[in-house]
Structure formats: structure tokens, C-alpha cells
């Protein structure tokens, strides 16, 4: 459970994110693991980027989607826990910098889920061990 005034800041040191066609695509630039969030999940990510706290995000979810406050609160908590596990966000103190646009009609709601793609990481893990170059003749002895 996250308190209403808790804020979480995208981990911009390692994570790059873009929202296209209502889908947020995130990538960990170090590991190559990438993620996608659609619908309410993408909306939550935009709210985090804009600095909204948990209470504000719940209100925005209820305003934008056909969802009860209780469901929105529970789903947001679960999503934030997943973001924290994946190190996509960290607890922060950033104040809201800009408001989030709310469409006039409420949208159908689906429980937000974070899709994780680790195929690139698996590919990197397949790299065979190779001989080292420490003893190359042009290296000065340390």
C-alpha cells in the first residue's frame, strides 16, 4: 500500500521511455530489457513522468477510466510495486510540473499490466566466453 502523497520518479538514469499511440515503451539501456504498458498503464506512466503523487493518480484514473476508486487504488499499488521491482521508478519528491490531459469521455478500463521483454537479455547471455586480451603484446605491463 502506498500513501496518497507518495511520489515515484521514473529512473531516468537507466530507463528511457516514450509514449506512442497510447502505448508506453520503456527500455533499460543497460540490460536491454524492455517493457510496454497499454491503456491505464500507459496513463499511469505519463502521470509519473509529470510528477503526480499516488492520490492524484488515483483521482485521474477515476476521471479518465470507467473504474472505481477502490479498484484504481489497488491496481495502482500493484503496478507501482512491479515498477519498483523492475527499478523503473524510485521514491521521489518531484512536484507536479504539468497537468495530465483528460479526455471528455471515460474510457473502458482494464487492469494495467507491465509486459516485460527479456529476449535481448537472453541473447546477450548466449554470448560464448572468449579468450582475454590482457596479455596482448602491445599492452604495457602494469
Amino acid at each position: 500500500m502506498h500513501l496518497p502523497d507518495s511520489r515515484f520518479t521514473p529512473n531516468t538514469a537507466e530507463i528511457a521511455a516514450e509514449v506512442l499511440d497510447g502505448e508506453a515503451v520503456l527500455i533499460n539501456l543497460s540490460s536491454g530489457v524492455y517493457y510496454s504498458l497499454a491503456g491505464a498503464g500507459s496513463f499511469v506512466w505519463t502521470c509519473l513522468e509529470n510528477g503526480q503523487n499516488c492520490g492524484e493518480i488515483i483521482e485521474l484514473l477515476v476521471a479518465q477510466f470507467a473504474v472505481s476508486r477502490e479498484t484504481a487504488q489497488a491496481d495502482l499499488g500493484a503496478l507501482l510495486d512491479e515498477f519498483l521491482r523492475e527499478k523503473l521508478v524510485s521514491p521521489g519528491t518531484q512536484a507536479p510540473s504539468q497537468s495530465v490531459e483528460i479526455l471528455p469521455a471515460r474510457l473502458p478500463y482494464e487492469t494495467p499490466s507491465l509486459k516485460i521483454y527479456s529476449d535481448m537479455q537472453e541473447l546477450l547471455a548466449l554470448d560464448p566466453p572468449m579468450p582475454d586480451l590482457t596479455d596482448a603484446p602491445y599492452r604495457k605491463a602494469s
Partner: protein
Amino acid sequence: MSADFLTLLETRFRAASTREIGFSRSAEIAGARAHFSIFGASLAAQIWPPFSHLETEFSGETAWKIRLWDTASTGISPPEIDDSEFRLEWNCSPQRFFYSHDNTLAVYESHVGISWLHRPSKTLWGCFFDAKNWGVYERSRPLPFLLPLLAHERGVGVVHAGLVAHNSRGALVVGKSGSGKTTTSLACLCGDLDFLGEDQVGIAARDGEFSGFSFYNTARVEDAHLARFPELRACAEFENGEKSLLFLGEIFGPTLRASVPIRAILLPKIPDENAPSHTRFSRAKGAEALRATAADSLTLPMGGGRRGFERLAQLARVTPCFHLHLGRDVRQIPLAVREILDLESE
């Protein structure tokens, strides 16, 4: 980086130039004019063919100077490296990439040699131990890391994608390994579309539109795959492994292009046994194209990190994206690609 070390590099290169007859060519790479000076006949024979389609007249106006020699034929070894003067940036031994502490000199070493890029002067020196012993990887994409770094510094990012064109309109072919990028790109090459690459190409935003750039005219193709393209057998060198190396410059020279504006992004899908013979297409979301490109491309050497991701996202935002449902008949793939590019010209 000390001027002494740069002087030493140039001195070694000049020493090599007195031992062997030189090979000199100019090429336009990522929109820049590069001048190659190579000493060592075997080395020139390995380095130049993948770039031969980009050859231009030597005009004297050179943006990049590429100065290479081969130790086996010239007897000139590389200068000693003092690890304390460099910061290890990337290590996938035996490939390693370093920067000098002031970031002016980038160094790439592998089991075939070592190369240095002085970023302010855009001069790349390379010393290779014995070019006769290069494997498929080195021969298919010479000068990895440092050439992409030069391109990156011109705002041209390297992406893991194919690139083909029709009537000067380019289609970037994206997707994970095994998705059909190579099939699509090679089918288009054999179907008389212009070809810029099947695996690694450059992209850049210029004057409000995206351009794609060719780096190499080589392709690495699984032997089973090559059976579908009998016209490519003439330029294939069979290796002992599962892949053949194709040098496309000699046979397909007229259809190889250096750069082209990007007008479509294609996401191919390999057909299953129930697929029809013809290739179909349907609209795709930009986010799908970004997902299909980003992870592979950003983990490439010089993939561009955050800037590269933002560039790919912008490309996916402004460029129409299509699923390409490949049919069983590879000869029909270029027909669908032509149709898409004609649509995008209307």
C-alpha cells in the same frame, strides 16, 4: 590524450606506408566523405569490398581519414597501450572499447587488431595483425565500433534493420532476429528494388525528415536460407559454419544505394505452412515498430543510448508502419513492398 601518442600513431602508419604499396579510395559513408589509405594488400582486400558500393571520386575534401596497416605484411606493430591512460567502456572480450580520460581518443581492440579514433580530427588509425586470418564477422563488417562512432557523431545512429528502396523512397525493415528482416531485404534486392543493407544501417533526422544510410554491402545468410535465392549464390562465399558471407557489390552494384529518405517501416513476419504464397500487408502501430527496433538496436555498439531511443521513437511517430505478412513465395515479397512505397508517395 597526449599529442605524443597521436604523433606515434601517425609515425607508425607512415612507417608502414614505406613497406607496402598503398591502396587509396574515397567513399561516402553516412553522408560524410571518408578517405581510406591502407597498407597491406591482404588488409585492403578484406576492408574495402564491403564499402565498395559507396565509392566516390577523390576530391580532396575529406571529412574522415581512415589510415590502416597490416603488421604481417609491413612488419610495423601497433604502439604500446598504457591501460592507465584509458577508461574501459565496454568489454565483451576479446572485443573491448576504451576512451582516453579526456574522451578525445576512442580505442577498439579485438583478436584481429586494434584501432584508434581521434574524435576532434576524425582520424581513424587501425593496425591489424594478419588480415589473411579474418573470419566471417570481421570480413562482413570491418571497423566495428569506431566507424559507427564516427557516424553517431554526425547524428547518424546505427540500427539493427534492413533498408530497401523503390523510386527513392526507402522502407526500413525491422524486427528481431528470425522475424524475416533478411528474407525481406534480400527478396527485394533480387526483385530489383534498391538495397542499402540487411542487418545494420544508419538513420538520421535531417530537415524534418528521416534518411537511411548504407554501411556495408555484405550479408550473412544461413545456407538453408540461401537456397531460396539462387541468384545470390554467385556472390556467396561458403564458410564452414551455418552461414555464408555474401558480397553484393560486384553483382548488384547498380542497385546498391548510399542513402535514401525513409518513407515506411516494415515489420515482417515469417510465414507458417498455412500461409498463402503472396505477401500481404496491414497497418501497424508506431509503438510496435519501436519495440521491434529499440532493444536490438540500442544494445548494438554505438546504438545511441537515450538519444538513439528518442530518434527511433520520433521515426516511428512520423513514418507509416506496416505489418508485412510474408507469403511462401519470396518473389512476391518485393511486389508488396513496392505497393506500400507507392501508396506512401500518393
